[in-house]
């Protein structure tokens, strides 16, 4: 992660400038949906995908596996 690449605005070797521009949805895809590497002592349920899924549904209100919101292009028939 230390190479100089200028493809995206948040890519910078400076750690503190890192997360500012990262789109939240992309971040949550990674921070929450990553595989569990080790199980912690506490808050095990947080690492469980089902809980996170449920909460994400509430959060993004429109997460779906394949089907986009029906009104996404052109409104309901």
């Amino acid at each position, binding site marked *: 992660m230390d190479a100089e690449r200028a493809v995206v605005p948040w890519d910078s070797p400076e750690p503190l400038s890192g997360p500012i521009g990262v789109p939240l949805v992309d*971040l949550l895809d990674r921070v929450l949906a990553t595989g569990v590497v080790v199980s912690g002592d506490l808050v095990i349920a947080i690492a469980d995908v089902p809980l996170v899924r449920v909460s994400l549904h509430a959060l993004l209100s429109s997460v779906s596996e394949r089907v986009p919101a029906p009104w996404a*292009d052109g409104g309901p028939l």
Partner: protein
Amino acid sequence: MTHPAPRDRAPDAAGVTYVFAVCRGTRAVNTADVTGLAGMPGGAAVRLLPSGPLTAVVQTVPADDFTDEVWQARLSDPQEIERYARAHHEVVSAAAVHGPAVPLPLATLYHDDDRARRALDGEAHRFHGVLKRIAHHAEWGVKVYEPEPPAAQEEREPAPVGDGGREAPAPGAGLAYLNRKRGVQERRERRREQALSVAESVDAQLRALAAASRRLRTHAAVPGGDGRVHVLNATYLVADQRAEELAALVRALGERTGTRIELTGPWVPYSFVGEV
């Protein structure tokens, strides 16, 4: 080597150890200064926790603010989840500056440093396997968007013909209406099918360049966003020396297919640490 940084909170029973990431315990990592990182809101200073050949980036956080119940509430509050996710990401990104880092999922907590160390030691071979796999690699996210409707008026229903005062519509008006509707629906489906086939070919070509790939869930348009719909949400583990090739390929694919393709990264390889 490192020693626990001074904490602004007494190290008592109410503190638990939050682990952000696990790195190789190299000199560069073990001499890194992480004290400037904010870490989790309400926590003590971020510090390094060496354990044999591995070093974890950890923070002592108040136990009563990191319980299951608190997290459940937190995960359903968009602002809170953003705050904690960004705090987590900031530390993970900083850890990865000095060498490969295995990010742990948000809210991986241990009762204390000893328990965290024991977990590291117990899974050491897995961590080393993952570290080897992700060294000199970064994760890149790619989204392929469905094209915008070509012409707005073509999609929209034409203004009703005939005057409104008539009691019965002209013969065939209902059929014409249905045909129009069917046309709109068919065009929409065709557009989506084309976008999906573009997505498949983009994915196939990027996979050829990547060390590994994963398909993430697609999201519907974000409420309050720009309404764009994506048909592919994939992520690729790409060697550092091929990152420019990837960017060029994504650009070329976008131009060739006339499709909007979005590249994000480089990410710490969040999506590629779970399988080993």
